[in-house]
């Protein structure tokens, strides 16, 4: 009898080869810097000098428990919590509308939610600065109504409103993705069994969407807790949050070890939140199809509460109807007033969701409107019409230089990260090997950690190899982010891939490479196109990490306009921001054409 051993044609090294370029980038741009950051946090700093004494101390961590820094931490918490609650309250109805609409309306709504997400954060914050400013449209409206003006900015209130505006789309997408998986016939069944329309929603749909609420809330909390650009610009540098503390300690006071320690604390908090977030999103499948017993256990405590609310609503409605009946008989005038009141009430009930949708999108058209203003003061409504701020861009060489730098960076990022990321995605999707899930989450981790931490860590690492403010340094930083996006996008388009197609090709005589070229790549082409657009946008728009590592003559465009806005509004910035918004719209249009918007998630 002849027994021959394991055959050679499926090598165990293939996944390792496919993964290695990606892992190399990740090691250089992410792991080594993070480890260095951790080590530095235990060094002794010499404030103001940028020097460090390499001896072990826990002093930096102990120092954080000073009343001032605790206050910063608590303030950041407060802002993040308010932002989360506000996003949930405003975002839920929009998510519901998106989940229940279809066709054109759904696409439009999704586009409205997605355009801001693809737009540079500085451009979006600029819109908020215009809206919430002392003489902005909101205060003008209040003035018109005779209500005293509110000082949104600089201040915490402005930051909360601003962060809500910036991060609410994530909340909406989290919730609507869960809501669209809920079988609508469940609500019909509840109606059929005697619940009111609201009761059916409240007892069936709402509890079932809980996983989306939890995931969205954790995500928005994490994002607002660790955001830098929006609080910096809307707080006018006066409201100290934890990310600003890190920036200030590192870049202004040059106390690296303390900045590193604060970053590590922020890192630990983030990891805890991300863990909860991952749990919430992965357990959502269980919640989507509840076992009857579990459902009872989880939601039983709500039942009495719901009943009470329903009774209360019923009483109110009857009382109101009675009152209207009595009043309408009293006089014609009251009848007219009541009708008008009801009309406006109805109008408001029908349209309040539209107001929320407007809130999401309106800063962007506002920026574009302002950019055509003739005046050098940014006012609303804009005075006169001119395109001089657009032509003005070309007279300011620093903007042109930054634009060209950003363009070169983004194109190179697309080229490298799409090839590297696709290889890694193929390894992750096609091969079964030990540690596959860990490697997948490792690749995605740069997206989950606060950009401030990545920026600070990279700064230390790049400084040690003299790459700060160099093209290759910024490229490395952008690559770890864009590769993560590419892997996520390409992986999701490989999920539905029918393995037998690859086998059929092999069976018909195709080599592995030929199969890749003629079967796999053509079939995931839409995924690749979207991945390339993402990579371009992410690199072109990247701000927070770049703030740390650019400088001198190598300043990317978003960092350039960010530093301009730190000193105040500048009409040239509105023109550039308008172009960035246009870029986002074009990108979204292409994605919509290639992929369909509803198949698309950006989390």
């Amino acid at each position, binding site marked *: 009898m*002849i027994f*021959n051993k394991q055959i050679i044609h499926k090598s165990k090294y293939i996944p390792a080869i496919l993964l290695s370029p990606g892992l190399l980038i990740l090691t250089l741009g992410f792991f080594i810097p993070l480890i260095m950051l951790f080590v530095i946090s235990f060094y002794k700093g010499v404030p103001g000098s940028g020097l460090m004494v390499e001896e072990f101390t826990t002093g930096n961590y102990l120092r954080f428990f000073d009343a001032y820094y605790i206050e910063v931490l608590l303030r950041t918490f407060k802002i993040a919590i308010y932002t989360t609650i506000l996003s949930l309250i405003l975002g839920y109805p929009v998510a519901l509308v998106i989940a229940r609409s279809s066709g054109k309306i759904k696409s439009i709504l999704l586009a409205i939610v997605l355009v801001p997400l693809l737009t540079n954060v500085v451009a979006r914050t600029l819109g908020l600065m215009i809206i919430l400013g002392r003489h902005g449209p909101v205060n003008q409206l209040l003035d018109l109504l005779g209500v005293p003006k509110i000082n949104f900015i600089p201040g915490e209130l402005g930051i909360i409103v601003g962060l809500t505006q910036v991060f609410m789309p994530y909340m909406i997408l989290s919730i609507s993705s869960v809501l669209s998986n809920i079988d609508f016939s469940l609500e019909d069944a509840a109606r059929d069994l005697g619940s009111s329309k609201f009761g059916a929603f409240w007892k069936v749909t709402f509890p079932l969407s809980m996983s989306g609420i939890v995931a969205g809330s954790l995500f928005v909390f994490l994002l607002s807790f660790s955001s830098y650009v929006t609080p910096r610009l809307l707080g006018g540098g006066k409201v100290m949050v934890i990310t600003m503390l890190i920036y200030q300690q590192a870049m202004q006071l040059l106390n690296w070890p303390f900045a590193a320690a604060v970053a590590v604390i922020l890192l630990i908090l983030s990891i805890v939140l991300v863990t909860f977030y991952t749990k919430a999103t992965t357990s959502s499948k269980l919640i989507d199809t509840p076992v009857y017993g579990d459902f009872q256990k989880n939601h039983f405590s709500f039942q009495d509460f719901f009943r009470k609310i329903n009774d209360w609503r019923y009483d109110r409605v009857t009382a109101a109807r009675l009152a209207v009946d009595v009043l309408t008989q009293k006089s014609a005038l009251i009848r007219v007033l009541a009708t008008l009141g009801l009309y406006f009430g109805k109008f408001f009930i029908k349209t309040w969701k539209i107001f929320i949708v407007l809130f999401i999108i309106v800063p962007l058209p506002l920026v574009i409107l302002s950019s055509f203003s003739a005046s050098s003061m940014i006012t609303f409504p804009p005075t006169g019409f001119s395109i001089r701020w657009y032509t003005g861009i070309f007279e300011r060489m620093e903007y042109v230089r930054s634009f060209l730098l950003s363009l070169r960076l983004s194109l190179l990022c697309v080229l490298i990260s799409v090839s590297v990321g696709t290889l890694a995605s193929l390894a992750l999707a096609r091969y079964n090997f030990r540690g596959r899930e860990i490697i997948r989450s490792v690749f995605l981790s740069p997206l989950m950690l606060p950009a401030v931490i990545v920026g600070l860590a990279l700064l230390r690492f790049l400084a040690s190899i003299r790459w700060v403010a160099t093209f290759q340094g910024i490229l490395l930083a952008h690559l770890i982010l864009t590769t993560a996006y590419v892997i996520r996008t390409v992986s999701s388009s490989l999920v539905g891939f029918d393995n*037998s197609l690859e086998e059929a090709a*092999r*069976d*018909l*005589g195709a080599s592995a490479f030929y199969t890749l070229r003629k079967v796999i790549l053509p079939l995931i082409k839409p995924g690749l196109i979207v991945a390339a657009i993402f990579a371009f946008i992410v690199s072109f728009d990247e701000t927070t990490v770049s703030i740390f590592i650019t400088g001198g003559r190598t300043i990317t465009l978003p960092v350039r306009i960010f530093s301009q806005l730190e000193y105040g509004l500048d009409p040239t910035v509105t023109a550039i921001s308008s172009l960035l918004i246009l870029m986002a719209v074009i990108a979204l249009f292409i994605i919509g054409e290639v992929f369909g918007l509803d198949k698309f998630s950006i989390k």
Partner: protein
Amino acid sequence: MCMVEVQNIKKSFGRVLAVDNVSFKVKRGELLGLLGPSGCGKTTLLRIISGLINPDQGVIFMDGKVVTALPPEKRPTSLVFQNYALFPHLGVFENIAFGLRIKKLPMKEIRKEVQNILEIVGLLGTENRSIRQLSGGQQQRIALARALVMKPSVLLLDEPLSNLDAKLRLETRLYIQKVQKALGITSIFVTHDQEEALSISDRIVIMNKGKIVQIGTPEGIYSKPNSKFTAYFIGKSNILSGIIRSDRRGNGLFTLASGQVLRVKSDIKTGTKCSLVIRPEYIQLLDEAKESENNNIFVGWVEHITYLGEVNYYRIRLEGNETLLVSEYGYGVSKKLIGEKVFISWPISACLVLQDH
């Protein structure tokens, strides 16, 4: 002369032994049916033959050469997939031409080959269609065409009819058989449908739990199942347990648990626990008892009648509480009533005694 020889193939996935020491041969031009319940390892075996899965052990010969170490693209096999695996981004022409392009045939020849094969599968004129524009049956034929155009020495078919509806399945089955015979191509056809296997195969390999249970012609397997499994899996069977004995004259006797005794033909040693297999079509329903030298005769009562058009199935309960399935062809609506007393009779030669293991 054998075209394919499979020797001692073993394959396990983790702790599951999917294919357990399987050996068989396929003759040149033969259509071999690989039949078994789902999960019996037949598809794994087919993929091992195609080269898509590497066996843990064993050797495969094709045309006298060892191919065990060859990747799928180097083997003289073509596989027709269960879900067809047609490339959705390519049209009909490009799907069929896929393998020919890899062979680097000149365009002229590719066109000719594709035309030829489309004519054989009866789909001339669909070259420019996209795959999505084809019906399920047409897709099936294109999948077959794509495999055949490679002129494989061995054609492998993995449950090729399971995605078609009942009527189309029958048509396509006859048609695959016709094409296979016309081209004289050695084929291995995996199915879980016993009717499909019986009707199409020259020989059948029956598998269960990773092992081969029986190999034989359809007639041989149906009339002489070598195990309770085959008897149960192929066609309808009455399987009774009991003990074999013999009378003074040396004739076989089979004692049921209820104590009733049947006359059988068997060389099995007295006292052995055995199973008795009787096909329903061998049993006759009689109105009155007619003793006969060559028949077993019993009294029973009609318990249930299933009407299937050309055939009636009766479940008859015997005195000893065993039930037997009896089929009656060509009578239209049943003449018997439920609860009616009947006599049943079957020839001694129709009883097959299998030793229990």
